[in-house]
């Protein structure tokens, strides 16, 4: 039993974090048409800011989650500034320039973090009360992993509600389907772009904050995450949130299982999953053709 459950829980934890990053990435692509290369650096910034606010103060569970939230809000403001000052000027340009612009943002953020916090790996201690395992069917699972899974499900629920049962969600879906039409119907598309970008950045920063107590913090830690999240986005179908959810779970769990049973594949499993799925369905799991 444990050989099945253990990689499953670890895979789901990974999936929860990947989904939060991928959901923002795919949302931004779907509406703005931009592949946001800088996404990973907002995740990284989420980790660093959480550490910065948290270390040495209010060493409690409440403290940790408050600071993850506060950091995400601060980074969301930064994301807002980036959208208004940089992105907005680029929408009409060739998509090449867009990718390069977001790449430049990534380098700037990474450079600033390295300047301020240094290149050495840093660590944020998890409050003792979270640093335990709970027993599920006789195997120990870190409590914090379970917590991340639960938060992932909650975020998913909120996003689903936002997209399907609010006015904003309807407009976002409309804009993703046809920008010109949406604009001509009186929707302020530039403002909508800002809102969508900011939601994506909030999710990224939040994921970074959640991840912070479980890994070593490095200025370039976002790169691998964004590449993995991007695999998730492509597998799920570009621009499709449901697809991102499905593929985050698929990629996360398969990565964990394959890594557990065939250790030599660790690290490349997500690409194998991507290659197989794109061969069968080039448009991604839930992507539409064309």
């Amino acid at each position, binding site marked *: 039993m*444990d050989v099945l459950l*253990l*990689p499953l829980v*670890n895979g789901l*934890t*990974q999936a929860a974090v990947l989904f939060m990053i991928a959901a923002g990435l795919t949302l931004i*692509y*779907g509406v703005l*048409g931009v*592949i946001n*290369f800088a996404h990973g650096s907002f995740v990284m910034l989420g980790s660093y800011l959480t550490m910065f606010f948290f270390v040495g103060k209010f060493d409690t569970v409440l403290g940790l989650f408050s600071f993850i939230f506060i950091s995400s809000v601060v980074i969301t403001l930064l994301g807002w500034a980036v959208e208004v000052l940089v992105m907005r000027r680029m929408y009409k340009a060739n*998509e*090449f320039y*867009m*990718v390069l612009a977001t*790449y430049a943002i*990534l*380098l700037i953020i990474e*450079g600033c973090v*390295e300047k301020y916090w240094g*290149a*050495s*790996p*840093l*660590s944020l*201690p*998890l409050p003792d009360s*979270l*640093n*335990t*395992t709970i027993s599920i069917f006789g*195997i*120990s699972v*870190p*409590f*914090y*992993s379970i917590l991340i899974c639960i938060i992932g499900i909650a975020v998913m629920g909120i996003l689903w509600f936002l997209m399907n049962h609010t006015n904003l969600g309807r407009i976002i879906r409309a804009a*993703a389907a046809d920008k010109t039409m949406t604009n001509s119907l009186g929707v302020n598309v530039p403002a909508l772009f800002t809102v969508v970008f900011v939601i994506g950045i909030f999710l990224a920063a939040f994921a970074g904050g959640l991840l912070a*107590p*479980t*890994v*070593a913090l*490095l200025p*370039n*830690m976002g*790169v*691998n995450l964004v*590449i993995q999240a*991007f695999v998730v986005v*492509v597998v799920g179908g*570009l*621009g499709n949130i449901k697809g991102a959810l499905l593929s985050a779970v698929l990629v996360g769990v398969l990565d*964990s299982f394959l*890594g*557990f049973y065939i*250790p030599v594949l*660790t*690290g490349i499993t997500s690409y194998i999953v991507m290659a197989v799925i794109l061969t069968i369905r080039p448009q991604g799991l839930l992507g*539409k053709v*064309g």
Partner: protein
Amino acid sequence: MKKFGMKSLILFFMLALVLSGCASKETATSKNGSSSSKDNPAKSKESTNGDTIKIGFIGALSGSVGAVGQDMKKGGELAVEMINEKGGINGKKVELVSKDTKGNPKDGIQAVRDLTQQGVKLFTGVVSSGVALAIPPVLEQENAIVMTTAAGADEITGKNFNRHVFRVSDNAYMRNTSAANLFYKKYPNLNNWANFSPDYAYGHASWDAFNNQMKKINPKYKVVKDSWPKFGATDYKNEIASILAAKPDAVFSSLYSADAITMSKQAKPYDFFKQIGLFVLNSNEGDISSALGKDMHPEWSGVHYYAEAYDNALNKEFVERFKQKFGAEPNGYNSETYVSIFAYKQAMEKSNSMDTDTLIKTLEGMKFDSVTGQREFRKEDHQAIKDIVWVKVEPDNSDKGWKVTEIEIVPGAEVMPPLN
């Protein structure tokens, strides 16, 4: 919906590849303020033969092991500063010029080429063994020497021996053979070992040396679990749980830097370090302990150098000056590059020459005093015979969160690799 942007996808992945190396940084550290060298290579070439000796520092200054390279460079800077205060080498001022290798062989080769263009013949540093193994052909071509100060692969001074390469620090064979000897002696009842090392050359070389030596000396030795996580992995929970399931008495690991930190954090909820009797991490220059702080676990760490392990005049001076300049106690990355520059100094003064061939001959078999006592470059393979230092780290209630409670020094001569 926007059409599938194939071009930007390709660009995205191209940039992703570039990023794994990150942006290049070139810095010229000069105490005389002669930063013109880069703009005018012809002039600087001349100045080498004139009144300045340029020593090139190459190492990963950015990327995932960038912090290691930056630490190493600090040691070099301090050595150069101290040598210049006392009149330089053979009456000439010394200048340290540095170049980022980003830890990859291609950039390493480029770094050597660029600096030799500026008239550098003597190199120090090199974090990655991959770089150390890639640069000898260029060194030969440019008639230059490198003294590696952290790269641990046995081949560098073994199978891939090149007379232009010296290693002032220890290697994987020495470090991990000494671990087997030491921990069998100290903990004779811990026989069931698990391995937890990164799946690449360094991890395998470390484990092979430890494993082979243990098999030789401990008849009851058994490997109950062999785990090889990917280098740079961010999730170790599956491996942690399966190692615990195998119930080892002791765990040997050659994870390092960020990987070791991530592993320790993820192992803590499982009470990993309480369930095993002994955790040996073969490379922790205090960087891992400091990052973990109050989360630090008990372990025996292998180090190049530990400031309090040595009570000699050279070490006292080094520690004092380092604290003055950088406001922190020096670690083994600082010390090895520092030592290498003084080794060059001794060779240049002894031979009163700057000629590469003469310097190689002088360095071969040369004995020199260092912060860790006397060292010697073995003539046949250019490997320094130097002490291996192990420190026992235990968590405590101080602000730092941990302290060193025991120091063990294994003389290098006991664990030198056999010559082919």
